[in-house]
Structures are given as C-alpha cells and as structure tokens.
C-alpha cells in the first residue's frame, strides 16, 4: 500500500499568536485523528507535518517552501493569522498548491487586482469586515446614531474597523471618532478621554486580546458609558469574563463560532476536543478542524490530490461543518459563513445576533457602569 | 629578626595562562618597612595582587599573621587586617571624598572609631577635609593618591601594602608621605611598598627586595642595597 498522505502546515506555535496558533494546531490534530478513524483519505492514512513559524511571515515563507520542496508533502493547510497567510500564499501559489486557509480573515488576501490574482488559496471564516456588523446592525435597529470606532493598528483589526465604519455609514449613522492605537498598547486614558468628550452612543472596538481587557477596564475607570459597546477578538474568550467579572456584563462580542450553535456535529466536536486536549476549543480550533475537513472533502470528491482538480471541487463545494457553512466565490472568498454576535449576560455568552440563530434578546441599552 | 607578619614563599603565577612570577618570595616582620623595587614589568604589582588575593598563584603560599591566606578573596584578606593601596587611581570617582573615607572604614563597626580615623586622615592630608564634599573623580591625580592612602588608614590595619604611593605627587607631598610612612612605622604600623622612587624607598626601608623578570634579584637591608653599586646602576639610574 501507499504511505500516508502528508499535509504540511506552518503554525504560530510561539511568538505573538502562540495561543491562537496552538488552538488551530489542535484543530488540525483532531481532524487528523478523526479522518484516520474513518479510514483515512483516498484509502491512505493522513499525517500532519507541522512547523513553528514564530508568528513571523518571513519564517513561514521559508517553511512552506521547505514543506513543499523538501518534505514533498502531498498537500498544505493554512497558517495562523492574515499577515502570515498573505506572505505564505505567494509560495503556495508559486508551486500551485491548494491551500485552505482557515484562519485568514482579510479580504485583500483573496480579492486582488487581476495582475496579482491568486488561484489556489481558499477562505473559511468570515472576513474581518463582518466582525462588528452585528453590533452596528442591532444598535441601528434600536435607533442609536453616533459611533466611535477604535482599533489596533494591525491588518486584521484595521479591516474590522473599516468594516464597522462602512456599515455604520450605510445605515445612516454618524462616525464621530476613529483612532488606531499601536499593537501592545494597554493604556487608553488619553484616547478614552477623547471618546468621552464626544459621548457616542456606540463604542465599537476592533481588538486583539489584552487590549480588549484593558480598554474595558479603563472605560469603567473613566466612566465612558455608551449605550452599546462591543469588541472583536478577545471578547469571546472565557478569560475575558474571568478577568473582568461584572465589568464584562453587557459587553458585546463577535465570534466566528460558538459551541452552542446548532451546526451538525458541533456538540460532539466540542466533547471530543475537550476530552482530547483537556480544555475547551476556541473558534480557531473549530475553524482549523473544519478547514481540514473541507480540504479532505474536496480531495475525496476529486478522487485525487491533484491541485487543479481539488481546486475545482473547492470552488464548487457547499458544505455545512461544525464551524458553519462553507461556500466560496470564484476568488476563493468566503460567502456563506455567518458571524454571530453575543453579549455577556450573567457570565454567559448569549448569542443575540443574527436573529435566526439567536436564542435570546440583547439586554439593551447598556446601563451606566455603577448599575451593572 | 622580628616575628614575621607576612610571608610569601616562591610565588608562581600571573594572568590567565601566562606566568609573570617565577618564584617570588617576600616577607615582612612586625614593625618593619619593606621596600620592593625593580624595573617596569618586573612583576611587583603582580606580586602584591597575588598576596592580596586578586590573583591566584599557580604555586607558592602566602601566610599572614600565622594564617594561610593563599587564594583567599581580597575582601576577606582585608578584613583580617591587611590594607592595600593599588597602583593608579584607586578611588570611587562618583562618591564624595568623605564617602570614600567612610567606605575605607567599611569593616569597622563603631561610629566612634570611624570618627577618630577620619580625624587622623584629615590631619595627615588637610586637603581631604577641605574637599570632603567634592566628588573624588574630579580631584587632581595627586589628590586622589592622598585620598587612597587616607582611606587605607581608616581601618587601623596591621599591615599596609602600598603600590607606588608617591606616584604623581608633588615633592612636598613625596617628602610628606615618606615622612608619614616613617611616622606610621614609629606608631607601630607595618608597611610594605613598591616604589619607582627607589632611592627614597630604600632610604627608609629596614629591608628591601629588588625584583626582575618575576624573580628575586637582590635582597637585604635598605641602606645596604642603596650602597650596592650594582643596584645603583640597575635601578637608581646610575
């Protein structure tokens, strides 16, 4: 018989994105295990070859080159984060390798001018621009008018902020303030003082992690009290609530995935993952897992590992995974997957948007800090 | 001969793998002044550094006051009653003159004794009192030398090793320092010094050594060496 099918990936196992990259890695590992338990792929076992890119694009580029030309892997899966994907995609394009990139949320990686077009990279999660859509949409429906947008100055957060501004304008709202802050910033006193002086109805923050916590804390300290306040990444982590406790109440967050969402197999995935790794999966885990299954499905349908045939299948494929819906347009850009918006309510993330998936209503408006 | 206070037997050693000393022996009896002379690079400073413990000898022994101190750390040696004034500019440049002197008395507990010692240092070198608030690093070369000697006296040591105490001093102070050394001897201190001012160093020495190329070359009473034509030719400049 033939040897196993080897799938290569470079992941951010250390460095800035270590935590998220490791979750993605576990998603891949669980997928590998599940595939092999059900007979592998094309009758062969599946084996992941994973390297650490230390969260830097330059290293990832080299490692993909190594995976493809040296280790001669049969297929590749995407790395963590948009910048790293952006750089690595140049390599996979060069070697005409299909790359399902489960954790790249930046539109510009996929939507490119004709002379820079990419053919082999596929998106799984919703674009960054969609992160704050739920928050703005809900607020608009409830008659709020003014928005302040703040964001970390990185590829992903900027896109999320730009999306928020666009949507707000479309809905006839007024963006009264927008400012970026550098990565790693944890002191927002001056920025919030400015926000406070404008007294916006909504504060929409495109955050990564620590900044989400620091921002929330300082909003309380400086008594910045909008009627709706939401963050992007970081707000969905259990630590967000553990850290902020009561101060996290009423905060909106956006997520690509929640384990309570009624996707097929989601519940089982959640249980299996917890059992395997001893902690709950994050959406990175689920996206990694689902991305791997999507690639496997396309290979199955193509009946071969040949890149162009697999590509055709990926373009055609419509699939509902534990992570939600998959369907891409001709650029490999995700069009089916939906973001959800939740709100922290009594220590629980309660999905409140979009309406068709929401088991509960948002608690609106957000009361002043001392009444939470 | 009087009781030996310090004896160094057959010291061999140097820096890293290179030996500078090839068997140097020095000794000082209680109450003596011993001078060490020799050309530049003879190993005089190296011998002192080895005795005090900055360098570890490859072989040989150092006995101070009946105890073996070979290879013991300098600060420990100094606590046992040996004082050492290194060659060059041995002061704390960013500390005031007063603080420098206080640090000299680091191993002395009682404030009363420190105050006493301070007084003695000021008496010996009045400029130190005048400049007690000046940063030591901004004092002139000679002033710094006085400070270093003054500081060494703060502990009332049993034996003082001085590496070129007259280096860079004005004649008035050279005379003063040699006078003070004699005075200290009379007061019961034991002294060993390295000097390039060989004539004066031999004149006050009970005994003296001349080193050359890391070995003992001459040895004897100070006045005898001073009179020796060979010594004169080699070390006193004719």
């Amino acid at each position, binding site marked *: 018989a033939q040897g196993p099918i080897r799938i290569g990936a470079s992941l951010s196992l250390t460095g800035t994105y270590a935590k998220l990259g490791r979750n993605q890695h576990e998603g891949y590992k669980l997928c590998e295990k599940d595939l092999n338990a059900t007979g592998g792929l094309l009758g062969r076992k599946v084996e992941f070859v994973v390297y650490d890119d230390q969260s830097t694009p330059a290293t990832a580029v080299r490692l993909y080159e190594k995976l493809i030309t040296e280790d001669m892997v049969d297929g590749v899966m995407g790395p963590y984060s948009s910048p790293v994907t952006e750089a690595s995609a140049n390599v996979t394009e060069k070697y005409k390798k299909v790359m399902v990139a489960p954790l790249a949320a930046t539109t510009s990686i996929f939507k490119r001018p004709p002379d820079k077009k990419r053919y082999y990279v596929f998106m799984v999660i919703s674009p960054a621009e969609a992160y704050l859509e739920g928050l703005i949409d809900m607020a608009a429906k409830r008659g709020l008018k003014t928005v302040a947008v703040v964001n970390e100055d990185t590829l992903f957060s900027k896109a999320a902020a730009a999306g928020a501004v666009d949507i707000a304008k479309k809905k006839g709202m007024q963006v009264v303030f927008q400012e970026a802050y550098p990565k790693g910033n944890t002191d927002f006193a001056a920025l919030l003082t400015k926000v406070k002086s404008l007294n916006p109805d909504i504060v929409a923050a495109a955050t990564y992690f620590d900044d989400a916590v620091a921002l929330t804390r300082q909003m309380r300290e400086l008594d910045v009290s909008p009627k709706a306040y939401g963050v992007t990444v970081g707000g969905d982590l259990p630590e967000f609530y553990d850290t902020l406790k009561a101060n996290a109440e009423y905060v909106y967050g956006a997520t690509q995935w929640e384990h309570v969402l009624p996707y097929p197999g989601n519940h089982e995935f959640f249980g299996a993952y917890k059992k395997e790794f001893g902690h709950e999966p994050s959406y990175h885990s689920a996206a990694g897992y689902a991305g791997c299954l999507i690639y496997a499905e396309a290979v199955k349908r193509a009946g071969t590992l040949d890149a162009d045939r697999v590509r055709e299948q990926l373009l055609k494929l419509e699939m509902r995974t534990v992570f939600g819906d998959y369907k891409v347009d001709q650029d490999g850009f995700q069009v089916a997957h939906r973001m959800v918006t939740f709100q922290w309510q009594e220590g629980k993330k309660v999905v409140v948007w979009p309406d068709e998936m929401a088991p509960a209503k948002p608690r609106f408006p957000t009361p002043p800090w*001392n009444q939470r | 001969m009087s009781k030996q206070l310090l004896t160094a037997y057959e010291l061999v050693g140097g820096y890293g793998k290179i030996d500078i000393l090839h068997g140097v022996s020095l000794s000082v009896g209680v109450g003596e002044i011993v001078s060490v002379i020799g050309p530049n690079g003879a190993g005089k400073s190296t011998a002192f550094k080895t005795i005090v413990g900055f360098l570890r000898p490859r072989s040989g022994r150092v006995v101070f006051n009946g105890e073996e101190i070979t290879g013991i750390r300098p600060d420990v040696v100094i606590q046992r009653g040996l004082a050492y004034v290194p060659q060059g500019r041995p002061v704390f*440049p960013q500390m005031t003159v007063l603080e420098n002197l206080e640090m000299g008395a680091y191993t002395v507990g009682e404030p009363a004794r420190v105050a006493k010692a301070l007084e003695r240092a000021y008496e010996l070198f009045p400029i130190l009192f005048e400049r007690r608030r000046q940063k030591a690093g901004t004092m002139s070369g000679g002033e710094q030398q006085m400070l270093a000697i003054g500081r060494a006296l703060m502990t009332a040591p049993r034996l003082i090793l001085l590496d070129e105490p007259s280096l860079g001093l004005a004649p008035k102070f050279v005379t003063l320092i040699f006078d003070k050394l004699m005075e200290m001897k009379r007061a019961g201190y034991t002294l060993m010094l390295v000097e390039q001012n060989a004539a004066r160093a031999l004149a006050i020495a009970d005994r003296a050594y001349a080193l050359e190329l890391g070995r003992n070359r001459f040895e004897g009473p100070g006045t005898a060496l001073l009179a020796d034509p060979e010594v004169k030719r080699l070390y006193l400049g004719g």
Partner: protein
Amino acid sequence: MNVFVTPAMLAQVVVSGILSGALYAMVALGLALIFGVMRIINVAHGPLLMLGAYTTYFLYSALGLNPYLTVPVSMLALFAVGVLLERTLVFRVVDAPELSSLLLTFGISIALVNLAQLLFTSDLRSVEYLTGSWVVGPVALSKPRLVAFVFAGALTGLAFLFLRRTKLGKAIRATSQSREVAMVCGIDVQRIHLITFGLAAALAAAGGALIAMIVAIQPEMGQTWTFKSFLVIVLGGAGNYPGALLGGILLGLIEQVASLFLTTQLSEVVAYVLLVVVLLVRPTGLLGGRET
C-alpha cells in the same frame, strides 16, 4: 474628526500620566540599580516583573490573599529568584564587556518568557480587586492606579533612603564605581552584587504585582516594561537614581499628553523624539548620568 480639548480633559490626562509615571519610575529604578552597580543592562527586567505579576496572581487566586498584601510576598519571592539568577549565571559576566551581559540577560529573558508559557500557558490572567475610580472634580482617579502610585512612590522613596543613608546602600554605590577598590575596602563584592540583583528583581516584582491589578497578565507582558524602563533611565541619566524618578514621571506625562493632542500611535514617536532631543542637549540624560 477633530476633538476639542478642554482643560478638564487635559487635567484628566495629566493626572493619568503622573499615575503611570510613578509606576514607570519604580520599575525603572531596579534597572537603574543593576546598571549602576554592575554595569549590566538587564533585559530580563521585564520578565522578572512578569514573574512578580504571576506570583501575585497565584497567591490571590489560590490562597485568596488580598492582592496588596501579596506585594511584599512577590518582592521576597523575586528577590530569591534574582539572587538565584545572579549566583548561577549573571555573576560570570559582571567583568565582561557591556554587550555580553546584555545578551546574557536577553537569553535569560527569552528563557523566562517561554518557561512561563510552558508552565502557565499563554492564557490571560488577571487580578480583579479594586475597580472603578474616585472622581475628583473633572478628573477620574483610577483606584488601582492611584493605589499603585502610592505604593510606587513609597517604595521608590525607601529605595532612595536605603542607598543614601545605610551602610549597605553606600557599599552598593561604592561597588558600582570600582569593584577593585571596593574589595580593597573589605566589601564583599559578590554579596553586594547578589543583593543588588535581588533588590532590582524585587522592585520589578513590586511593579508586576501592582500592574497585575491594572492590566492582564500573560507571559509576554514584560517586554514593554523593559523597554519603557530603558527609556526612563536614559531620559533621567543612566545610573542616576533620582533621574529614574524624573524620567518615569516625564515619560508618563509625555505619552498621555501626546496621545491626547495627537494619537496614541504617535505618542511613542513623540516620546522617542523627545528622548533624542534631550540626549542631544544633555548627552548623559536630564540629571546627568555617568559616562561610560
């Protein structure tokens, strides 16, 4: 998107700047100490601060200790860590050129951060104790930051007194100027180095403990602090202990005021440009450090 700056806003920002500035000063003082005494730029200062923060976190979450009571405990614990590091590694580079020690501590810093990642994971932790603020007129005083300010001020003051007045403190300063002469004075230099390193680690730990109540704790939290501490001691004058205080407050103020009038992003630029200007006018920092 112009924001009209009112005096009240300016007051708020100035107060915030001073509050964080004192914290900068305290953390930087540890760095200044090590630099002054051992001529070592301790890049592991931030990671030591991170360990201090974790100590506080674990004492608080596991034993339920009042986080402010953990400050001395963290300090003691990190004093021990500092002593251990000095005894095993750092003492070997004390005589070496500046660059060696810099790299050594950089290596230690990488190792500490990754050890923390392995042991504590990269999960965010935090100590939620005092929250909210006291409002004085137009100015909101963050409770945890104000308390941290008081602690930092007191600890910095104590450290100064220690260095100026006590015999041990003076011996530390003496050793910083000439090791050889210190030995000649009978000072046990190795012990002084140990104590210095321990003390600096303890000051970093105090910073970590206080910061734990302000921002989230994670293994990489220290780097920014190493960085800021550098800025602070260079601004004030390296090796100049009062300079660290001035530098800290100044940095806090510059950051906040620049963020108010420009953007948070440019505040860093402003801080550095100002630093370079200061250095050009006074090449050894505001209060004049030591030439190397």
